[in-house]
């Protein structure tokens, strides 16, 4: 049996999360097909066909799939799923939105955010904000799984030559409509895929002070994140939130500035390769996970750091 991976994309560009999801599919083993559901998404299908390890790309191109509305996308995936042993999607806000709907329509449980593949039916996933790791086994005829992308190294985006096949769409379910979106415009790297992340917490004291982090981030080529406390306090928008209920990141370098290190924040960044903490409270829990800790006033240390790197 083959594995179906649902592509992450915006109709123009194949999302990097797809490459990590294909890597998880390779760890399971089997033929890997990718579904691109969108509108005018031929370029995405072509990109997916080049991904290493993909043997076939299915394209459902129609207006109903333009914004990945789950009411429309889920029936399409359900119709295809029965020919597959596994259906995988990245644990992005898109994947998290439509895939449980697919699982319920198939009458199977979903396994969310796997971080390791033990065998074709057994997976590891974090629970309790990553304070415990559960090993779960699925007896479902079709295993429906979301993949924590930071836990799987991306497969190469080039090297494959998969066949592209059109599949018939199922039209609009007529239950929901896209109204609009406001996407953050930024020249900085995307938070969940950045090599370096600089994050600020409550210690930043105001939204204006986040400018210090942007200046440091620009010197390091980094993305900027925030703790839930900083988001709750209105210092940063929610799409910058790193943590159990925000984005999960695992960059090569994570710089935590004025972040105490609440459980729910650590859940979102403790798999980073190198962690730096800058905090004036030497008892802050963040120092227990930091490779390099600097007990200092961030308003002096951060500009100084930006100067020296």
């Amino acid at each position: 049996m083959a594995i179906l991976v649902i592509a992450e994309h915006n109709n123009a560009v194949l999302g990097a999360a797809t490459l990590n999801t294909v890597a998880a599919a390779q760890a399971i083993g089997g033929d890997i097909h990718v579904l691109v559901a969108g509108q005018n998404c031929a370029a995405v299908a072509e990109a997916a066909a080049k991904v290493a390890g993909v043997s076939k790309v299915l394209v459902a191109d129609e207006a109903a799939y333009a914004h990945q509305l789950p009411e429309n996308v889920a029936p399409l995936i359900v119709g295809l799923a029965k020919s597959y042993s596994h259906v995988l999607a990245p644990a992005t806000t898109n994947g998290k939105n439509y895939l449980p709907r697919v699982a319920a329509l198939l009458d199977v449980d979903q396994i969310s955010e796997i971080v390791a593949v033990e065998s074709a039916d057994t997976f590891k996933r974090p629970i309790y904000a990553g304070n415990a790791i559960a090993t779960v086994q699925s007896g479902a005829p079709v295993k429906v799984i979301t993949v924590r992308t930071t836990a799987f190294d991306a497969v190469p985006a080039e090297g494959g030559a998969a066949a592209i096949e059109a599949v018939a769409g199922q039209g609009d379910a007529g239950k929901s409509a896209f109204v609009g979106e406001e996407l953050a415009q930024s020249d900085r790297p995307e938070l969940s895929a950045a090599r370096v992340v600089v994050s600020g917490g409550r210690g930043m004291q105001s939204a204006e002070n986040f400018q210090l982090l942007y200046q440091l981030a620009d010197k390091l080529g980094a993305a900027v994140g925030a703790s839930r406390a900083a988001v709750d306090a209105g210092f940063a928008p929610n799409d910058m939130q790193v943590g159990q209920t925000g984005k999960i990141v695992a960059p090569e370098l994570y710089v935590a500035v004025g972040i105490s290190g609440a459980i729910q924040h650590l859940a979102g960044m403790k798999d980073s390769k190198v962690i730096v903490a800058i905090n004036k409270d030497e008892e802050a829990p963040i120092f227990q996970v930091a490779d390099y800790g600097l007990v200092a006033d961030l308003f002096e240390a951060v500009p100084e750091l930006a100067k020296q790197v």
Partner: protein
Amino acid sequence: MKVLVAVKRVVDYNVKVRVKADHSGVDLANVKMSMNPFCEIAVEEAVRLKEKGVASEIVVVSIGPAQAQEQLRTALALGADRAVLVETAEELNSLAVAKLLKAVVDKEQPQLVLLGKQAIDSDNNQTGQMLAALTGYAQGTFASKLELEGSKAKVTREIDGGLQTVELALPAIVTTDLRLNEPRYASLPNIMKAKKKPLETVTPDALGVSTASTVKTVKVEAPTGRQAGIKVKSVAELVEKLKNEAKVI
């Protein structure tokens, strides 16, 4: 309009859980339990809809052990009108919970069902979407804004790159994200009044729902810990270490 709100009893978000020695799960003995934070936001949103005159009745439902009555009483103190406990001692997966909620939806016929986007114990982020699938309703997940206009709901959703707004036909399922609202605290008089509000208990059997699962937990382990590193004395030393020791800049 009738609004149904689902709430879950979970470990309090301040508790750092420990894995049991036999790896069968986490140790919940003598641990503080609370309403899941995202469910508190769902209750608050329903109460605000009632205060605006949009919602006429708020029914709150929980699926869990007898002690989940505490969380239902909390929701009643916050402003829900009556409560339903689907009592089960088993730890159920999201699909089973969604099937039980579907049975309650069939009976109550709400125009809107509000749930938290995710429970902070199992971290699944599935139940609302599954309930939407089983009822055939539209879903507005990770909501940061909810507006009801006639037979439609306009939901602004937190997505990876920013915000997305969708329009859903009612009845619909909405799951809450952090910024939807800031939940209030229950006042003492309301806590007293809540004790007299109706709370009905039913069983999965009585609802005719099978809670069988296709997934089983084999074991639960502690994550591999991260060791604390060193403290550096100055920014200059930090930069030196990052360049020459960690080689990340």
